């Protein structure tokens, strides 16, 4: 019984840790499928983490925080789209700049709104929405059915986005833009509009991930709190072979590093925590050597498209 409970506890932690990475990965996925390679998820998550706290604090509702966060994400996404779709600038450079902007702007505004104090301002955060009965199931009950709403949303988005991408016509059209925009164009699809939409919606989903960090996992904003999860999301997309279910498993495997470290510490095995933080990245590199990311990525990923 105790063992089940312990493992169930690990599962619970893993899932809630994986949620923000999953959200970021899904948002990135939408953009990738439209042909855009956005490495700026870290920046988007940072600004939306702050926006969520600001919204929750000043409007008194954590849902307002989420809304504000998604708005911030949309603005960042729009900025990205204008530069990379309309102006056809280098997507990697713009993404890197987005990261710098996200970090610096969130730090600055944090000081402006909340001042530099020793105690962080705590805000209203998401509460756990326990699903009665189901949450009592041993082992998986707590992990699957006693999480915060954003976690549910994150995992529900997996089949939803999968369905959208692979079972609907707009999804097919989106993917055709990412695979071969010229073909899509000749078949009457508005490539630019598709890319804009994918970016803005995708950025909003990434923003939800950021919001969960500051108003879910924790209930305050700390500078640079995303701590590299944006990059892990990037890795998750590749490791997950650009599929929603793949990203979900990747996120859970990557975040399991924390769990593993706890287990090992309890067992007395001394693998330094720092090595465990490397796991997602090493795994991704290994994955890249096994399957060329080019083989599974949308064929036109990262290439600016020019009409005519």
């Amino acid at each position: 019984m105790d063992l089940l409970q312990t493992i169930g506890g690990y599962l619970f932690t893993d899932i809630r840790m994986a949620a923000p990475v999953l959200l970021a990965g899904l948002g990135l996925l939408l953009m990738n499928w439209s042909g855009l390679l956005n490495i700026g998820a870290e920046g988007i998550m940072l600004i939306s983490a702050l926006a969520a706290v600001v919204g929750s604090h000043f409007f008194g509702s954590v849902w307002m925080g989420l809304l504000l966060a998604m708005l911030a994400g949309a603005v960042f996404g729009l900025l990205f789209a204008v530069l990379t779709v309309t102006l056809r600038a280098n997507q990697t450079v713009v993404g890197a700049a987005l990261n710098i902007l996200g970090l610096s702007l969130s730090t600055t505004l944090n000081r402006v709104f909340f001042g530099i104090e020793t105690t962080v301002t705590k805000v209203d955060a998401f509460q756990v929405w326990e699903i009665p009965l189901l949450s009592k199931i041993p082992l998986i009950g707590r992990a699957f059915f006693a999480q915060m709403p954003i976690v549910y949303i994150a995992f529900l988005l997996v089949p939803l986005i999968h369905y959208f991408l692979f079972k609907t016509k707009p999804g097919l059209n989106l993917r055709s833009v990412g695979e071969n925009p010229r073909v899509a164009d000749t078949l009457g699809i508005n490539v630019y509009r598709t890319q804009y939409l994918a970016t803005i919606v995708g950025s909003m989903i990434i923003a939800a991930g950021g919001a969960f960090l500051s108003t879910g996992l924790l209930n305050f904003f700390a500078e640079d709190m995303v701590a590299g999860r944006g990059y892990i999301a990037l890795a998750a997309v590749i490791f997950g072979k650009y599929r929603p279910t793949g990203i979900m498993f990747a996120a859970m495997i990557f975040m399991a590093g924390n769990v593993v470290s706890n287990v090992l510490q309890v067992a007395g095995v001394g693998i330094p925590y720092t090595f465990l933080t490397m796991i997602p990245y090493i795994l991704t590199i290994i994955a890249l050597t096994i399957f060329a990311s080019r083989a599974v990525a949308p064929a036109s990923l990262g290439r600016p498209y020019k009409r005519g």
Partner: protein
Amino acid sequence: MSVILEMENICKQFPGVLANDRVCFSVKKGEVHALLGENGAGKSTLMNILCGLYKPTSGEIRLEGELVQFNSARDAMELGIGMVHQHFMLVPTMTVTENCLIGDKEGGSIKLDRKEAGQRLKELAERYGMEIDPDAIVGTLSVGEMQRVEIIKALFRGAKILILDEPTAVLTPQEARALFKMIRALTDNQFTVIFISHKLDEVKEISDRVTVLRLGAVVGTHDIAQCSIEELARLMVGREIIFDVVERQHPVGDILLEVNNLSLHRLHSHESNKLLDDLSFEIHEGEILGIAGVDGNGQAELVECLTGIRKASSGEAIYQEKDLLHLSTRDIMSHDVSHIPQDRQKTGLVMPMTLVENFALQDYYKTSFGKRGFLNWTSVEERSSKLIQDFSIKTPSAYELAQNLSGGNQQKVVAAREISREPKLLIAMHPTRGLDVGAVEYIHNQLIDQRDEGVGIMLVSTELEEIMRLSDRIIVLYEGRAMGCVRPSETTIEEMGLMMGGRTLDEIRNGRVKEAPIEDMVM
């Protein structure tokens, strides 16, 4: 049959070239209408206008009597015009069904019903004697199957007029046969087919009428039944070509390059439709061997194999006691071989670099260009200035970016660089493409001078005048095979046209002209 399509006085002007010159082209419903012509005749341009990818500079298009204007490919598609391009517009990672459904606006729901659509596609295909697997991933299909998908895709989207651009260029004979059956099935069902080609046999076989284009203008529209292949050849290449074979000053020397049984298979297939099929020929010192033929019949592949860019499947190319087919590009070029590539923008020049930097491209690694790992830019500059002067390259400075020069001057830069390397063997592919008359003259004189100094030249060109004027001997390529080897003084334009269209010299001269339909072609 009633007229379904009329293109009236279509003109299309590109910078420096009039691609379509007051073309009048009308097609009847349910017929197969061939558009015949050499490279640069304007066929593809005309059809790109028809399917909405280009806008005509002037002229009108009427569909079933109504004036229409296309602002995009989508417009043309919605009006029932579907084009199957030479380079397929397919997404290799998606299935056949998915490819046909991209951008599809039919049906109310956003749900993607692959099964239902796949069913419809299968039925559509079977109706016209084609077989497709809707769930196959396009990337795994053979070229012929991909083409079928393109046709089905066009039909699926409501095409009533189907334009096929050089469809048999990538097909095996059986696949071509199957295609023709398909075409007949379509026309039996009141679909109209426009068939772009340079292959005389096929045009004669499948079409009802033919319109011949030459240099952007219509030369004639005829009923096929009343046209012999010889007449078609004559129309295609024209009789007014004036050429004067340049007199030989020096005798031809020893064999410089000996090619034996050179073959190149297509990727993923060993079918008889090879890219290069058992080519054997020699080039002597002080001789220009012309390689003629319509673009796409193996010329590019031949050059790539000889210059180390592509690996041949079998055969040998003996030069200076080495086999070029097994050497790297650097090795080949360092043994006094020069290459003027066919695509100056892609492989001949580095567009964003200066002319000086471009002039260094082939030989920079030699000590004459700099010692101990450094480039001696001063000497490169001097060389460049001289070449610019010698070749009359119009540029404000040697440091102008290559991309800012006109096309003709860009070509001069490439030619200057390669010729000035003092090669023993020069492979020149389309060396005068895009040049004005004066520049063409200059390059020709350069080639002749080189020949007179003992250089062996392989001149690949689609310009018959150029080939006839400069070559000592000419080989015509068709589908990777040599149709024959002739001397310009001993052949006629008609003969050349026939070879370019698929007849061997043997057949032509010994009267064994086949009028039999494609079915009887031995597989």
